[in-house]
């Protein structure tokens, strides 16, 4: 029998490890969605960031160059999304879907052409090429874990307390009012989308060079969508979204431990626990658990009158 205290510590650490990319990504999604830009492309941004961070870290032998490359890759995707949704007023969901599909193909095509390992990047060696735990080797507390936790109050402060945040919220609810006040709707939304790219880039880098030691195909495995679910679950507010990420992380952490455990004579299928974040979000959206109300202008391109 394991020491219960150690069990609690390890479960908490596992929860935090799994939740870190979700938190970073969710905060990014929050900026984008509060400005009125739907982001179903979080998954693609993260995947692209994961690939480039691992590839550059392997080539330069430097984790930090890897992180920088990851952020840059996600920002390129974010700019494409902005170009399609803000400048050319295209359909935001279509753009997000396109970026996801593009990322899942490009990472493998480039990875294969570059490293000839069937889409994988070379395995990263410990110190230098990866971001290693800072204080507790068994807990996997790399610097990005702390950064993720820090990102939540910062996001809250920016959105709730700064002039930029006020305008950001206004542009997501009623862009016409912001435009009338002489503030550029496009520039505000571009900044929101770029912030989203920055955070999604950090999330992808974490997955490839802190949580794992290199890139493998489709390694984000739906986490971008879970982060999106967390944004909705948190009703587009930072701290409730953090709560949702931690809950989804905990579910994932216990799923492994619950394998084969019987509850009231019935074995709980691991797949049910894995599907719970999605199911819970569907229930929430359907109004069975409270009500989730999206920013009013979300998904609508803003057309300036001439």
């Amino acid at each position, binding site marked *: 029998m394991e020491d219960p205290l150690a069990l609690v510590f390890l479960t908490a650490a596992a929860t935090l490890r799994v939740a870190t990319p979700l938190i970073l990504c969710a905060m990014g999604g929050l900026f984008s969605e509060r400005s009125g830009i*739907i982001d*179903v492309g979080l998954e693609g941004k993260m995947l692209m960031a994961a690939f480039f961070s691992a590839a550059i870290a392997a080539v330069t032998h430097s984790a930090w160059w890897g992180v920088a490359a990851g952020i840059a890759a996600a920002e390129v995707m974010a700019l*494409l999304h902005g*170009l*399609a*949704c803000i400048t*050319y*007023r*295209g*359909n*935001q*969901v*279509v*753009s997000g*879907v*396109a*970026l*996801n*599909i*593009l*990322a*899942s*193909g*490009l990472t*493998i*095509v*480039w990875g*294969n*052409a570059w490293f*000839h390992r*069937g*889409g994988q990047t070379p395995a990263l060696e410990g110190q230098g090429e990866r971001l290693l735990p800072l204080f507790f080797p068994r807990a996997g507390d790399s610097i990005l874990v702390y950064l993720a936790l820090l990102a939540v109050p910062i996001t809250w402060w920016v959105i709730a307390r700064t002039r930029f945040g006020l305008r950001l919220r206004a542009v997501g609810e009623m862009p016409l009012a912001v435009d009338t006040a002489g503030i550029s709707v496009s520039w505000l939304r571009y900044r929101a989308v770029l912030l989203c790219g920055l955070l999604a880039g950090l999330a992808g880098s974490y997955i490839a060079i802190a949580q794992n030691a290199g890139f493998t195909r489709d390694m984000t495995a*739906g986490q971008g*969508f879970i982060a*999106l*679910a967390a944004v*909705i679950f948190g009703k587009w507010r930072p701290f409730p979204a953090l709560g949702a990420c931690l809950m989804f992380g905990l579910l994932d952490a216990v799923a492994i431990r619950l394998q084969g455990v019987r509850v009231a004579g019935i074995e709980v*299928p691991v*797949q*049910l626990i*894995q*599907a719970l974040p*999605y*199911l819970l*979000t*569907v229930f929430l*959206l*359907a*109004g*069975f658990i409270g009500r989730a109300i*999206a920013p009013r202008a979300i998904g609508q391109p803003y057309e300036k009158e*001439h």
Partner: protein
Amino acid sequence: MRARRPLPAWAEIVLLPLVNIALAFITVGIIVRIIGVDPLHALELLVVGAFGSPESIGYTLYYATNFIFTGLAVSVAFHGGLFNIGGEGQAYIGGLGCGLAVLALDRYLPIWLMIPVGIAAAALFGAAWAAVPAWLQAWRGSHIVITTIMFNFVAAALMVYLMVNVLIAPGSMTPQSRNFEPSAFMPAMGGNALNLSLALALLCCVGVWVFLWHTPWGYALRTMGHNPEAAIYAGTDLRRMTMLGMCLSGALAGLVGVNELMGVHHRIVLDFPAGYGFAGIAVSLMGRNHPLGIVLAAVLFGALQQGGAELSFDIPNITREMVVVIQGLVILFSGALVHLPRPWLQGLFALRRSS
């Protein structure tokens, strides 16, 4: 700035989409160039790989069959103003329905009865999986885009559970069901994967065309897509139309299961939708949401799939995922960036008028 005149109708319908697709393929060419392959040489190998022999044409059309089903599925919903991203999950569950019907009945029914039952079961299960998000949007106000995305993941989890714990053939090491009896084999057309599902797909095209443009329900669905308020004014029940549009969409996506399971695998396997559901978005955008356009786009994507597979044998630097890149770029340029070339074309037409 002087307001630009709108484009003439033919340019809007023909020229603009062609420019969009050309932009997507120029980008593909640049990417191929970046990974060190001559794009024209790759194109030549691809065309030969897709159409060079009766066998390769068979595979091209077999892939095209799946693209027709999912392309139609996306477009039917789209005509009603509904964006169904759940084709992947609906195809998966449609296959489950098809497989369950076959596993239950293939020892008792003759082939001429088994196949219609399998097709009906696939359509029914696909429709049911789409009906839940439709119901949630119509009656509970939750957005169909998010719910259908979530339902893709739920479908994948459900299938893994069923395959590993319930449907796995006794003694099998991999999660797959027992083999179907020959009474559930979709008759082959030619030697390889191509089967009668292609005829079913073409029949669906005609059906969708008749439904959308020659029935009162299709008219109501399109009205809802163009202008929901006008539809209400005309006495349309938007909730029922949402249900109808999504159920039809899901049923069409579910038919992928017929082509894959009754046509080729002859058992239930994991992951057979393999991205066809998402690719349906590209097919429908490229085909401008019209059945004829969808058939053409589906054959193109089928050729890319088959030719791309052959290409990856000849040029190791190119992998099969190149097709996925092309799908993404087509969705980007013909969907999200559809307005990108419009100012250029307007400028060109303005030049022509002034000269």
